[in-house]
């Protein structure tokens, strides 16, 4: 059983794995699609939504996450020009922005609680805000993991193709959760 295949030069093919990230994005989209369709059916059958003025913090966090997407985009550009130093700075900046985003989300929940719109609520539409923003935050944690992966790739001495692969999957996922948040925020704004 110790036969091994005839070893050719090891070639790294990122395509199938990048595709995996895309498929994950699809399944995650479906999950949030499930949540928002729950909300739509709920609103249609009960004739009421969350009925809140959403805390301003959500606006700030939206800007922060857009900013983090921009820094990540710059990081990708820098890597393409083999400018590793700026790439690292931009990646770290993205991580910091992600942490700020998380902090603002927590403060937004704090604001909601102060106004009496708590998680445990007789209006499930209000509980819903916590659930989707909370699950989105879980995605942020995973995204930060991928950014750290790209960072580690940038520091380590690995082939450029692998550095690029790590950077790319971090970008795909991060831009996705950026757009996802904008979708959720706009959804909540439009479906009071």
């Amino acid at each position, binding site marked *: 059983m110790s036969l*091994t295949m005839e070893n050719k*030069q090891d*070639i790294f093919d990122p395509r199938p794995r990048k595709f995996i990230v895309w*498929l994950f994005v699809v399944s995650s989209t479906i999950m949030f699609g499930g949540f928002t369709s729950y909300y739509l*059916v709920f609103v249609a059958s009960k004739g009421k939504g969350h009925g809140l003025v959403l805390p301003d913090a959500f606006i700030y966090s939206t800007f922060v996450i857009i900013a983090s997407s921009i820094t990540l985009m710059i990081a990708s550009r820098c890597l393409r020009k083999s400018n590793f130093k700026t790439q690292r700075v931009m990646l770290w900046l993205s991580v910091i922005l992600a942490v700020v985003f998380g902090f603002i989300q927590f403060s937004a929940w704090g604001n909601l609680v102060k106004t009496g719109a708590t998680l445990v609520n*007789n209006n499930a539409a209000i509980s819903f805000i916590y*659930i989707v923003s909370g699950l989105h935050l879980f995605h942020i944690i995973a995204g930060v993991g991928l950014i750290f992966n790209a960072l580690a790739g940038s520091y380590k001495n690995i082939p450029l193709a692998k550095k690029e692969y790590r950077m790319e999957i971090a970008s795909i996922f991060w831009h996705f959760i950026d757009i996802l948040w904008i979708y959720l925020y706009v959804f909540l704004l439009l479906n009071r």
Partner: protein
Amino acid sequence: MSTLVLNDEHNHDHADHGHHKETLISKYIFSMDHKMIAKQFLITGIIMAVIAMFLSILFRIQLAWPDKSFPFLETFLGKWAEGGRIKSDFYLALVTIHGTIMVFFVLTAGLSGTFSNLLIPLQIGARDMASPFLNMLSYWFFFTACSIMMASFFIQTGPASAGWTVYPPLSALPQAIPGSGLGMTMWLISMVLFVASSLMGGINYVSTILNMRTKGMDLWKMPLTIWAFFLTAILGILSFPVLVAGVVLLIFDRSFGTSFYLSDIVMGTTILPNEGGSPILWQHLFWFLGHPEVYIVIMPAMGIASEVMAVNSRKPIFGYHAMVYSLIGITVLSFLVWGHHMFVTGMNPLLGGVFMVTTLIIAVPSAVKTFNWLATLWRGNIRFTPAMLFAIGLVSFFISGGLTGIWLGNASLDITLHDTYFVVAHFHLVMGSAAIFGMLAGVYHWFPKMFGRMMNPKLGYLHFWLTFVAAYLVFFPLHFLGLDGVPRRYYAFTEFEFMKKWLTVNVFVTWSAIVAALAQVAFLFNFFYSIFRGKIATQNPWEANTLEWTAPVEHLHGNWPGEIPTVYRWPYDYSKPGDEGDFIPQTVPFSQTMSSNLPHDFEGNPEAERIQLEWEAANPVIVDKV
């Protein structure tokens, strides 16, 4: 970009998989080899199937002899069978866990997990999955999910008992029944892990099929097994996340006090604070997964049956393209029919009508498949291997269970038959028995590929006939109970006057179930004995065309020594007129089969057609003979 060019030359080996040393742990436990992971899924699936079958025998005993005491049950089950009679709470736990294990752990993970893992890389010509690591993780998430589900038998309040569909409010209120306590929490955790496992698997399968096919293997040269696994994986990716969404909300309702599914509930004398939710919303989220789920269960079995029947009829599968399009049709339609599970929820009749129409349309692709299977058998040179018998068995169950689907798809009939034994009979035939027969066909057929040995065919025949006959004897009578209005999930038929007359039928069904269960001993013995002592398999024991049989019997990491073979033709060139043998593997180029080439083989390539015509002109005798 340079990687793209190199790929075609070198069949892209995995960078991190070229040459590592195998230890006991990396080979058998945390294996990243798709063939080993397939075996892990299969053996775990078999163990779970035996457990779920055992649970069904327990509740069948209760149904047949509700008033009789069986002291051995108390010995086994302790307080859940005090006085030798299964308690009503435990009865509900039994049916719930039986359903959950069979649908999710056996027929989803055990079936897709085993055969997608084994066959996708081998039949499309890849070294391994797109991400072997994710693949390994997929198995271990599945294993953890199984363990947590089984662990719920060992807690004070027992396993989840709200039925495999765990409808709230019953499942959402821990104080409602014992089974809605910790057992339900464990069910939900187990299910989240299971969904994570399925998604990791499914994502991997799709990426592998789309990106890693060998040279020449275009989509229309893929065996139907691969098409089926591919579409099944897509179904899973698109539907399982919705179940997660539903489960997350249920977890919050249960453990944090939200009201997503709860409203206006009075428990005894206390009024619960929950307000404003709707349990119907759970049903929508659940069945949006739940209906595609039944196709996730049956489609891999269909793919396996198509392949096994073509090989053993020594004929091309009838209507290859129609088979693929019908699978695609089923995939698309399966997302549009979930409402047929909810006709009695007070659904708008117009909406019910829409769901009824979409449901009945599914009969079209299903019938296409059935007729194509029959046409494949017709005038075939049939070899009745055990795998072939099980594949034919699948067709039989699919027809007899599918016909009642047309009844149940009609809203007006379903309102009467809903939640009766008629439904139980229907789905146990069409997705239960049919899918398990597909899985068994696959085990018998690809056992030599998995273990390098053959299973004993005589025991296989014994297994088939006993199981086939007993399964019909179990499920066929249940139709009549259902037509008489006997509801499913009821604990004792002695409690209601109109159900008493069915007690004798229940005794008969239970005996049949016991025979069916005993028949599995023949399989289990055959399976485990043959792993170690079976006849050594040759490389291509069934004389099949697909790529996996060009790989050496001995498993090696990377599947083929040296180059991955190139594919030149579709996988169903069996008994091709003009050819000496009765099968032409996919790796044989047309230049080696001049006497059997047909004009449409060249897909309009004028150069190839010219060469063929020249050859035919030069060899008139051989051509005339054809």
